[in-house]
């Protein structure tokens, strides 16, 4: 298999900010590859360089076999993009937006008609194709942008925070479509997200923080870095249990929110043994598989969630504030 995206030592400096520093990775053809990180980590900057909107300050990048600096037109022809915020023309209907795109990409009229029908039916927008975009909900707009990004059969589809600002139901739907479409055409998908649960849909994930990749692997591999399953335990005598864990199993545990938390590999086997052997009274025990949240916390020492939630509130506030009168 060949590589769809090859990034080598890429960096991008703005006036007083190094947004991306010395990033290298490659994405295989047909892969779903995720960039996971908090806002401002350099995800969007990387996408903008890969889709020729920004020139890199250093390093090189190839998309679909073309250099992003020297072969811009060929790169543009080979990619589809769904941006973080909507880039539809609100004055036109859904269908007009798609036709504009098809024409700009030089898709033949016959193929355009066929693709529009195919994609809009799949994304459940066919009945609304004559409607103006102004009447579309956020979720519908995102679906239409997805249809548009795929209209010209791109070899690589970039999704920049594809579900940002959508309610959970719409998020779920978008993912269903993306994975469905991916199964059908085997397009390479490069996506960014700061939602951990979304990153799990990827074949491989690069965790990015402060402009650099700090880990790269399959979701399973990354979770293994956490060291196993996460066990949370409540008891009146926390000190004794922590001591027991340390002395008998050499496990360091943490006290968090009135509960003891620790990670252990093969927790489902460890737990019954531990409970049988322990002399301490316990009120509750829970065990869960590690999530990418745990991975991020472990790798960076800070959680991804709060930051993400804050950023989103700001983004929405900003969006409403700048709406046209």
């Amino acid at each position, binding site marked *: 298999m060949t590589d769809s995206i090859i990034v080598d030592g890429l960096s991008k400096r703005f006036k007083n900010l190094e947004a991306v520093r010395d990033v290298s990775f490659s994405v295989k053809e047909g892969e779903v590859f995720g960039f996971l990180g908090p806002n401002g980590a350099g995800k969007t900057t990387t996408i903008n360089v890969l889709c020729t909107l920004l020139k890199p300050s250093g390093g090189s990048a190839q998309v679909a076999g073309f250099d992003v600096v020297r072969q811009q037109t060929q790169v543009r*022809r080979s990619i589809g993009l769904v941006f973080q915020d909507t880039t539809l023309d*609100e004055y*036109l209907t859904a269908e007009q937006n798609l036709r504009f795109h098809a024409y700009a*990409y*030089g898709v033949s009229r016959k193929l355009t008609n066929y693709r529009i029908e195919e994609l809009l039916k799949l994304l459940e927008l066919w009945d609304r194709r004559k409607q103006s975009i102004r009447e579309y909900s956020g979720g519908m707009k995102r679906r239409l942008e997805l249809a548009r990004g795929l209209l010209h059969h791109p070899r690589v589809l970039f999704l920049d925070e594809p579900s940002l600002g959508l309610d959970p139901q719409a998020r779920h739907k978008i993912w269903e479509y993306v994975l469905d479409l991916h199964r059908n055409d085997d397009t390479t998908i490069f996506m960014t997200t700061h939602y951990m649960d979304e990153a799990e849909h990827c074949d491989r994930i690069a965790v990015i923080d402060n402009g650099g990749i700090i880990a790269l692997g399959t979701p399973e591999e990354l979770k293994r870095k956490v060291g196993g399953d996460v066990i949370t335990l409540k008891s009146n005598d926390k000190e004794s249990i922590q001591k027991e864990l340390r002395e008998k199993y050499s496990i360091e545990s943490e006290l968090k929110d009135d509960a003891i938390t620790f990670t252990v590999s093969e927790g489902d086997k460890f737990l019954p043994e531990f409970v049988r052997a322990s002399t301490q009274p316990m009120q509750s025990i829970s065990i869960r598989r590690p999530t990418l949240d745990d991975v991020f916390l472990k790798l960076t020492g800070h959680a991804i969630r709060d930051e993400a939630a804050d950023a989103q509130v700001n983004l929405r506030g900003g969006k409403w504030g*700048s709406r046209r009168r």
Partner: protein
Amino acid sequence: MGVAAAMNDFVRGVWVVAYREFLRLLRDRARFVSAFAMPLLFLVIFGAGFNRSVGPLSEDVDYIKFVYPGLIAQTVFMVSMFAGLSVVWDREFGFLRELLIAPISRSSIVFGKILGAAGIAVFQGLLMLVLAPVVGVPLSVLTVLKLAVLLIVLSVSLSSIGMALASRLRTQQGFQIFIQIFMFPAVFISGVLFPVNDVPRWLEVVSKVNPLTYGVDAVRQVFLTSQTVTVASGEPPILGIVFFSHTTTVFIDIAVLGLFGAAMFFIALWMFNRQA
């Protein structure tokens, strides 16, 4: 990539960008109506208000006949500026990125926006001609054709100004402010409402360095060819711009505005390619 393929991409890019401008106008009738209603309002109010007190400017030309061709030029100016506004608008609403990542060149976006705005401006300018019988000026096919060519020069020049500006400005508000501070005064002193050869010295000077003045005069000259425009000797002429005792012809007018427009066009092209 061969020359033919590149050319093909360019033409497709220009057309798709321009086509969208036309499509948007069709879906935004308010814009279309206001571009016609504004000059009509000007004509009715200024015409009715001044026609009697100003009196005829020459044997055939009363104030309404004088103002009317100026208002055609004004319509073209205002509508042409929309090229720039449309870019700023696209940037603000994100659509510009859809254009920027499409496999079409930056230059074809500039050409397309200008073609789109200029096309609409010429259309709205020519639409004003339906009022010609009301004003009392007979039109020949030749006059209409000459006007069409002239309006193309006018609109391309003006949309180029807008485009050059749009590569710098980020918000519609910024653009509106520019229109209010520079464009409105520039249109007002371009001689739409008064003969620039017959005003106080200071106003005459600022009017005559204003490139728009030559556009207004050119439209007026073409339009009033069938009318008697001679004035008493010693009086300043109502047609032609008197510049160091030379009176400009239509061709000089077009040359002045055309050169200015071409400069603006290249600035727009250069700025847009560099910026976006």
